[in-house]
């Protein structure tokens, strides 16, 4: 009986002396695409169609086709430029999160007592929904809220600032809440990678006389490199296009647009001001910025790996 795992024999049709193989190879090339087709169709419907509509709408106003008017209005709008600037400031959370998460992961990896309990505690904020995080921190950071009450009771009145009411401090306060909320994810990610590294690597380094710092600089960090790159990429995309919930719940973009970010700008333009064309143009610019960043990121990291 024919073994199903064996390759079927090539069947040749002799024409003169040439052998013409069956078109098995052409079908085989199509196979992977046929299996991917349903998922591609789903992505096409849920992402592709809205994207096409977004591009179309960005060139229209309520009066009809508008050419580049929306983009011109957008770039001339100081609120939009301010929103982009704020997204840029929030990007500072990425290196802070990365450094803190790596440090905490190494700390837990060192095997301190109750490290599993600490891991759970660090991860807990990640499990709390953002509206709850925003609501609780919104209360804590009020001028007469929990944080300032504690500071005043410790006679640190000078540190009791108007965290959410000051135009200079509000964005940094939101950044702090984001770091608090997201840190645990990075810790767990890096810790999982650390736990998968062969312990022989560390033993060999110690035998060679590596101290704590050299061990982690020359063994741990290189091993974490790939996952750090992934985390930085994810964090950057988050700060550019996933901070709406934090800002909306904690400050609603205030005070005086001091925490306005691009997503909130888009939301307001579309659903509050009825300026769908401008909102679409802003969304397109944001998408383009993220795509360019991701492309450059992969080029850079790909080049480093080649070197």
């Amino acid at each position: 009986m024919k073994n199903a795992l064996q390759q079927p024999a090539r069947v040749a049709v002799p024409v003169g002396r040439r052998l013409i193989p069956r078109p098995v190879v052409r079908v085989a090339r199509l196979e992977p695409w046929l299996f991917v087709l349903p998922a591609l169709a789903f992505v096409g419907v849920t992402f592709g169609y809205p994207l096409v509509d977004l591009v179309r709408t960005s060139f229209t106003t309520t009066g009809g086709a508008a050419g580049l008017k929306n983009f011109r209005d957008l770039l001339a709008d100081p609120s939009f430029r301010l929103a982009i600037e704020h997204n840029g400031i929030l990007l500072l959370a990425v290196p802070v999160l990365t450094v803190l998460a790596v440090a905490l992961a190494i700390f837990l990896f060192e095997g301190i007592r109750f490290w599993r309990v600490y891991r759970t505690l660090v991860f807990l904020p990640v499990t709390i929904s953002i509206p709850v995080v925003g609501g609780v921190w919104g209360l804590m950071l009020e001028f007469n809220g929990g944080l300032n009450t504690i500071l005043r009771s410790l006679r640190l009145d000078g540190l009791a600032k108007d965290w959410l009411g000051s135009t200079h401090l509000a964005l940094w306060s939101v950044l702090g809440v984001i770091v608090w909320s997201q840190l645990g994810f990075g810790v767990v990610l890096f810790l999982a990678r650390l736990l998968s590294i062969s312990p022989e690597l560390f033993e060999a380094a110690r035998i060679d006389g590596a101290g704590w710092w050299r061990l982690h600089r020359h063994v741990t960090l290189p091993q974490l490199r790939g996952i750090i790159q992934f985390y930085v990429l994810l964090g950057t995309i988050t700060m550019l296009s996933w901070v709406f919930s934090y800002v909306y719940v904690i400050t609603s973009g205030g005070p005086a647009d001091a925490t306005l970010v691009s997503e909130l700008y888009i939301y307001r333009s579309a659903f509050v001001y009825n300026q769908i064309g401008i909102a679409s143009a802003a969304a397109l610019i944001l998408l383009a910025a993220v795509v360019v960043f991701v492309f450059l990121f992969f080029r850079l990291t790909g080049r480093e790996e080649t070197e």
Partner: protein
Amino acid sequence: MSENGSDGRLIDALAGELGGSLTRRALLRGASGVALAGMLGARTALAAPKRRSAGDLVVWYLAAGANPEGDKRAFEQSMRAFERAKGAKVKGVAQTLDGFIPAWKAAVKAGQGPDLQYLWEGIFTLEDAWQGNLEPYDTHLAAQETRHWLGTASVRWNGHLWNSPRNLDSLVLLVNKKLLRQAKIDPSTPLQTWAQFLRVCKKLKSAGIGPLGFGLKDGFGGGWLFSAWARAHVDNVADYMRAVVGDADITSERYSEWWFRLAELRDKGYFNNDIGSLPLFHAVNSLFGRGRAAMVPAAASAIRPLLRQVGVGNVRVVSVWPTFGDGKLAKRNITIFSGGMVLPAFSKQKQLAAEFAAFLHRPDQLRNQYQLTTDLPADDRVSAGLIREAWQLQIYQQIKTNPGPWLEDWIPTQMDSEANFSGCQGLFAGQSAADQVKRTRDVLEKWRRQSPELRKAYRKWIGDARRVYRT
């Protein structure tokens, strides 16, 4: 095809498992057919709108007001009563405060959705009317029905009526009489002029009592302060609207003095020191309820819990705000109907939907709504005898006899959000009043540039505004 033919082997293995005679080509054909059928089926399911029977109504409503639970029950009872009366089926879908606008915009874009939709009054309704998303009520209901609806001044445009109000509300100043007595102030002292108002604030502050309580973190408070004081020198709401479209100078004292008066209150320390970090309703409830502020702005629909906390006998309701101006509007109270039902232009049941909106205004339905919510009815066919509490009756009488515009609903939402909300936050974060006047001017210039079609429709609205508030 991989070099070792692994892909081919897998398919052959599968073919072998399913039956020796099934070739790889047949298997691939079969899988493709299943995938294609699945996609076509999904497309058909997504594209085909759910069939509704003729006579079915879909209502997207927001249970709001003083008692949202009661309002929801009132809505549901009205829907059931309408079903019995008309033999039609009514499906009510309760919306959320944050979700109802995005859901409505999505329905408009899709061209399908509810037959009746909840929308706020004024500009929030008319921007959709201007874009052709709504149907006016007067094309489906007789004038002798709609003329009984109260508070509709802000939803009349181009000679038509665009919203059916659900309930009335008013922006008042609540005064804690007990705290005034503590500061040795007569609780019935007049609070009509700015000088009288400042005198009371000064005495309260000297007695160690917070004169005014407010919150600006969520932004809404800016719109309240604007509605209370920006009309100080204005005789007719159309006056202010002229400045919005650029026919008058928005930076002139006539329209901008209120920023400087607000800065005056700030500089004298009459507001709570955490105004920038407190949300509006939380601030009003906690500061007034706990006796940390003697006076707070409040929506009439939200007063009852405060009265319970402070004691009805200890609260004075000031319906006409203290003013620094001589404008006729400044002597009126601030009336609003927060929201009501609009007729979507895409509805296939417009007549039936309009009849349901009218049904909600039947005296028995309004009485039931009042019993369940205690919201002031937006219809003059309901006897004032329904209202038992003196403070609410006082507000209701003021609304009927001395109505004035809630100015926030007569300006573009972009101006409200970017000038009033942000401006008040900036002012209390230390920026100057002049900065906020400049901000208002810049925001309006931006609105005129970015929304020329809305500006054209808005200009047309000015004519209607001049007629509805004859002062």
